[in-house]
């Protein structure tokens, strides 16, 4: 068990592979089931008392006999919550295409507004679904599935939504110039505001989305991932990108595992 105080400990069948959590609830799903074409159920675990309730029942989907049935039926690599905590989303793969499935946690309404995507769901608000392909980022209306905007030639590398659910902070590589760019994107309109543009000749910082917040994006110099940055001494120094001004505070944060 982790070295902190255990809040809940619950045994579930299968290999749990997806999870999302807010203040009161953890949502979990298995990687896949033994039944070909079956999308595993999504369970909600109360962090108050450990009780479990099913919020999405298992679903059997049609699978191309030539497809990889177990994987096709998985939840597409993630369960993700909107910043408000009202919407849960995942990507249901079906014959190598993604259907974005959202659950309104208030009403229990399950929606697949966007189907047949070659890419996959990345992030979502209650109103907009953000999806990515190999080199593009897309915004879809969560209710109607209408494509709202596309950022073309932008290979998404990391990002997060601000708590207002309206703004995406995205780090991406410009496919044409190979520059590494950090920008804010209004997910209703797709309007972009570039904050940082690092030419390909320079060492690119990595956006550390998990540690970033509404005010600062945390950047790891040198384009390193966390595992590389922490290797050896177990510590590194990060920069902070002020999202309101675009100013970088160099070496503003020392991160250590000890």
């Amino acid at each position: 068990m982790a070295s902190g105080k255990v809040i809940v400990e619950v045994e579930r069948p299968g290999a749990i592979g997806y999870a999302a959590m807010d203040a009161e609830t953890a949502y979990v799903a298995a990687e896949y089931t033994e039944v070909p074409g079956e999308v595993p159920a999504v369970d909600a675990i109360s962090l108050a008392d450990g009780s479990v309730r099913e919020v999405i029942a298992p679903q059997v989907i049609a699978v191309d006999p030539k497809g990889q049935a177990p994987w096709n039926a998985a939840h597409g690599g993630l369960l993700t919550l909107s910043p408000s905590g009202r919407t849960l989303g995942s990507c249901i793969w079906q014959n190598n295409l993604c259907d974005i499935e959202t659950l309104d946690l208030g009403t229990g309404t399950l929606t697949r507004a966007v189907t047949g995507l070659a890419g996959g769901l990345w992030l979502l608000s209650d109103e907009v679904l953000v999806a990515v392909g190999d080199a593009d980022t897309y915004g879809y209306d969560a209710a109607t599935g209408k494509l709202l905007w596309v950022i073309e030639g932008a290979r998404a590398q990391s990002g997060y939504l601000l708590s207002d659910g309206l703004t995406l902070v995205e780090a991406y590589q410009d496919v044409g110039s190979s520059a590494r760019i950090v920008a804010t994107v209004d997910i209703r309109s797709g309007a972009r505001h570039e904050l940082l543009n690092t030419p390909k000749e320079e060492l690119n910082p990595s956006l550390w989305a998990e540690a970033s917040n509404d005010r600062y994006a945390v950047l790891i110099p040198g384009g390193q991932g966390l595992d590389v940055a922490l290797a050896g001494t177990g510590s590194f120094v990060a920069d902070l990108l002020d999202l309101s001004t675009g100013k970088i505070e160099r070496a503003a944060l020392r991160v250590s595992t000890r």
Partner: protein
Amino acid sequence: MQPKRSVQPTLRFPGLAPMLVAAIAIVILAVALRASFGGSAGASPSPSAALSAAPGSPPPEATGTPPQATETPPALLPLPEGLTNRTWVTLSPVEGVGYVAGTLDGRSHLVLPEGESPLAASDGRVLSIRFGPVAASGLASSSTVIVATWPAAR
């Protein structure tokens, strides 16, 4: 409260699916074999545990070098204004230790023991999974979901 979610684009690209499934099976098998022979298991058998990995990449392997206990911890900088002691999870597998995670200012940390893999975090808490016995299919037959607080005084 604002949920703290993984925001890396851990996407599934169809072409990688067979490789990932194979990787999962291999890792689970390796975990089972190591457990059977009294060894330890440190790698995650779940591809979704790769929250900090590049899109579509396989789960991280335990290849890092454990920090030496005799090293002097680095001096910590004051936490910049606007940054609170927020939780983060680094899925850095440290060989012989497990996964290392911590809080932003480095003053507290959490080491998940071997065999326990983090899947999600929100402020002050981390959700991890401990897999049960491996079934004949090569998959874990059960999982224990553990939600724990960070150990540090906040």
